[in-house]
């Protein structure tokens, strides 16, 4: 059968540990002074952190703006407004679907061989 340590022994071991932990506690006033100093310095640190973040965001925005402004414009016909040039170049994404097999048959009017004399002979009343 398993041997179990009595409650009193568990209590003794844990209490001894607590007593040793308590004996090693730092002084209350020292800890409180440090805590107060930290609470005073924390908002300042947060403020300087926010300033740093704002400066970084502005730098990135400036960089993006410079890159966009310096990008070379698309080659256009001289004299045409930008919107017209863009519309002329535009292609539908489904444009390729219009190229179906046999589409060339419909591209021009078919030429039919004339059989008019036969048709006239067959006509009633002649």
């Amino acid at each position, binding site marked *: 059968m*398993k*041997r*179990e*340590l*009595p*409650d009193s*022994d*568990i*209590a*003794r*071991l*844990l*209490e*001894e*540990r*607590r*007593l*040793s*932990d*308590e*004996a*090693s*506690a*730092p002084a*209350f006033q020292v*800890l*409180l002074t*440090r*805590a*107060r100093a*930290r*609470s005073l310095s924390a908002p300042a640190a947060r403020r300087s952190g926010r300033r740093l973040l704002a400066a970084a965001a502005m730098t990135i925005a400036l960089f993006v703006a410079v890159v966009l402004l310096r990008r070379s414009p698309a080659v256009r016909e001289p004299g045409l407004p930008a919107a017209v040039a863009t519309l002329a170049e535009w292609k539908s994404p489904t444009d390729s679907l219009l190229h179906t097999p046999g589409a060339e048959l419909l591209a021009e009017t078919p030429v039919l061989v004339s059989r008019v004399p036969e048709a006239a002979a067959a006509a009633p009343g002649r």
Partner: protein
Amino acid sequence: MTPIETEIELEKLHAAAFAWALACCGRRREEAEDVLQTTYLKILDGRARFAGRSSFRTFVFGVIQRTAAENRRKGASPFLLFGTGREREKSSEEAGSSGPEERLALATALARLSKRQREVLELVFSFGLTVEEAAATLSLSAGSARVHYARGKKRLASLLGEGARG
């Protein structure tokens, strides 16, 4: 309670509060001091308010436990109640009259319990809280705390008994 009265009460509890903070921070001293500083600030500037529903000690211990949990969530340390072997060893060297083997066996056995079982047992055996007070400290129902206490005690007694036999 005025701020001065609160500060006096905190000073009375300080040593025990530090011991409990150590238990909540895996016995890492620096982290325990940090948690205790934050706890005191929370209580003194009114972010944690004592409503008088429990004893002041239960309230302070509860704030310490929650602050330590917040620190862990922020990624201060992945360890829970018990730190590295080196820290455990250091802590056991500082311990009182029990022998080093006995202290090491206690630390090892406690480390094998669940976090809740360990917390309830520490509060009851080390700090002399009732199971109901431990439940209030840990924001548990009294029923849950009783189950953690009974199972934890049985397992700890068995683990320490095995150690003593071997």
